[in-house]
């Protein structure tokens, strides 16, 4: 009997342990405490109440210097460029600073939304620049440079004067002047928590089944001239199955027989996969392609343009390798190319590829 009682007690203890485990499961040997230094290295976020904002300051004029050397190549001298990204500045006015609502956002004909038209919390702009800018060298700015660039953008948008210095001590005051500070709402049913209140979805439909309205009429379709804008769709569908892709290099067929004849003669037209030149892979690896397309102009000239312009130079490879490393301005326009921090061998490989015509 005694052994039976012991057994019972053991079951009870086991049950108690199980219950304990359900409350706080432990995983001995897994994970470790974060050190203070590690926390400060990674915990860089800044909240709308400016929690997390490090101490520091930066003037508009200092910001202009940083901007012109590190930001203008993508965003334009005045933050107005639409070449690489949507414009940073524009579309806001003095009245918006008073109301905190950007009037242009109600104007359906206004073509584009700029950063400053949307910005409702200053912390978001500061944090954006601090964590992700410059685009190809994120986290390379000092804290004071981030303040300075933020001040410069605010100055371009007329939020702060030319002689202004932005700092952790006056951000809350500047926040009160943001043109779109009152422009956000959480009045919707698309937040999967309770924090903003519970609402029914805004768009209501019904699952009508018979004779539902209205009588259908085609209101929008792609114009004929855009037929091939996404490339030949025959090459974007499987060559076997219930259907084929339409041959968009030719006008649409008019009869079923014509379409079927065409579709079955267009075999798998996808080009055999080619190996990309090693130098192009290097150019991508070193983010050259962020500013240069192969045949299209982005921030800088296309690779093919570069190859064409300097063709015939005796010292072509040396010249190009040197320019890649040192950067420069004036050959292709006012926007400077910053010096690139890649190795000599890689710079030379890219230069040789350029010299040979930059073939993809």
């Amino acid at each position, binding site marked *: 009997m005694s052994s039976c009682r012991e057994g019972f007690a053991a079951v009870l203890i086991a049950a108690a342990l199980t219950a304990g485990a359900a409350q706080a499961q432990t*995983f001995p040997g*897994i*994970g*470790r*405490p974060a050190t203070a230094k590690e926390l400060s290295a*990674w*915990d860089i*976020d800044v*909240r*709308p109440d400016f*929690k997390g904002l490090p101490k520091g300051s930066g003037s508009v004029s200092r910001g202009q210097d940083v901007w012109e050397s590190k930001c203008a190549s993508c965003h334009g001298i005045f933050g107005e460029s639409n070449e690489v990204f949507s414009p940073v500045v524009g579309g806001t006015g003095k009245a918006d600073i008073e109301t905190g609502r950007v009037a242009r*956002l*109600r104007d359906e004909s206004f073509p584009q939304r700029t*950063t400053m038209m949307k910005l409702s919390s200053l912390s*978001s702009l500061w*944090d*954006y620049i601090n964590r*992700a800018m410059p685009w190809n060298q*994120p*986290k390379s700015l000092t804290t004071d440079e981030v303040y300075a660039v933020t001040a410069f953008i605010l100055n371009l948008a007329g939020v702060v004067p030319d002689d202004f210095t932005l700092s952790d001590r006056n951000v809350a005051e500047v926040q009160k002047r943001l043109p779109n500070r009152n422009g*956000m*709402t*959480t*009045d919707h049913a*698309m*937040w999967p*928590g*309770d*924090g903003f209140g519970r609402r029914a979805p805004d*768009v209501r*439909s019904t699952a009508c089944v018979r004779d*539902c309205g209205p009588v*259908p*009429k085609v*209101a*929008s*379709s*792609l114009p004929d001239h855009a037929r091939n*804008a*996404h490339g030949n*769709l025959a090459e*974007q*569908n*499987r060559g076997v199955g*219930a259907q*084929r*892709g*339409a041959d968009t290099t030719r006008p*649409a*067929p*008019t*009869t*079923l027989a*014509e*379409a*079927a004849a065409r*579709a*079955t003669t267009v075999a798998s037209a*996808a080009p055999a996969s080619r190996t990309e030149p090693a130098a192009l892979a290097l150019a991508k690896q070193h983010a050259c*392609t962020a500013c240069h397309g192969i045949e299209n102009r982005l921030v800088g000239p296309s690779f093919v343009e570069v190859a064409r312009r300097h063709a015939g130079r005796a010292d072509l490879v040396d010249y190009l390798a040197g320019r890649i490393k040192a950067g420069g301005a004036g050959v292709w326009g006012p926007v400077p190319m910053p010096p690139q921090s890649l190795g000599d061998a890689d710079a030379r490989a890219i230069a040789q590829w350029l010299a040979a015509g930059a073939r993809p």
Partner: protein
Amino acid sequence: MTPPSRSEPIRRAGDFSLGDAVERGTVPSGRLVKAPEHFLDPAGIRRAFDEARHGRRDFIRRAFAAATAGAAAAAAPTVAAAAGDGDDPAILNLPEHTTGLGQPVVTDGYGRPSKHEANVQRRQSPGLTQTSQASVSFAPLQSLFGIVTPSGLHFERHHQGWWDVDPTGHRLMINGSDEKIVRKPMVFTMDDLMRLPSVSRFHFIECGANSGMEWGNVAVPTCQYTHGMLSCCEFTGVPLKILLDMAGADVRRGRYLLAEGADGSSMTRTLPMELVERGEVLVAYGQNGEMLRPENGYPLRLVVPGVQGVSWVKYLRRIEVGDQPYGTKDEVLHYVDLMPDGLHRQYTSIQECKSVITTPSGGQVLLGTGFYNLTGLAWSGRGKVRRVDVSVDGGRNWRQARLETPVLSKCLTRFNLDWVWDGKPALVQSRAVDETGYVQPTYRQLRAVRGSRSIYHNNAVQTWLVTESGEVRNVQLS
């Protein structure tokens, strides 16, 4: 069924095949024949192996003779079988793969699709973005079956390019917005995370901007571009709740979380604690049975079921628990939905119920009239898809489609419907209803509330026009 036993007569070595046994009627079909050592004595096993060795020599001799004969046949002039009316040369003329020797094993240690599948590719939409590092590639939905997106065809969205991160150097940190909210901030290695109890779940991921180009009018030709910022995979990982408990998070006060990536953009997004408490949010390393692909956040990403893709932070390095939302760059300057009154909706996260027909769909050509399996995908960020209706007359009349299993919460659901095309123009649409009763709206209904400048969260009913020539076009109805 009685298992084979020693009481059965010992057989000769050549007899140990299921086929023989079934043919001779000694073993009923479907019965497992045990390996010889289970019912042979030691002498019998020796004899079996001995005969097998001799048998192998015989096999090699026979194979050599066959190969020689084959070579002789190949050298002789080939005479194509004469195909008469109704005879298919594909049947009459035996192809090389029927008459020759195929490829050896492990020609490619990780395999790849058939070369005939070369048209099935992720693609960029020309002109959509000026750079290819802050860009998107669309999954070829028109070529996929079932609900799973092959990992190599999963759509891509990068804000500052993708990386192939060394998993041995990758860390995940859990901390709090103040010292009290997370008692014990922690660091985990990938080894740590992969030792913890894991779960595997199928979920869709959709970019908030999917179909965004079509808010105002038709802009792109195929469902790859209209709906291809959508994928669905089985994800494997650790429920985030486990890690928060380990770190001692105060979930009474900490009702928000910040997820942060380790790449250049260091993507940050606010999450509600409710989803984490329900065990839905995963810290995932597995995707369709393999590790995540680098383009999808290798070695670690957040899985936030039902929520737009931008919150599924890739290269996940940090989770912070906080007492208020974070207003990150992608919650203030991007991923905000402009409404007609000029206000931006902030923290719009749930992907509402939506569907699209993938066959027939834009840019395709039907090869003739007659039967088609009209097929497509439906999903909802609020749970399971309850039903899908299909119209071929532009929304006047609807028929209920078959939902194929599995039908899972916050996961793609495949639907099918028999359709006989009579050769007349048809306006093909699908309309999904989810388990909350929400009905996917038309463009007219959606625009009446949200205008056409939202960019994000376009879940309108898609219309494909099947023209008389069999070509299918993307259209919108008035």
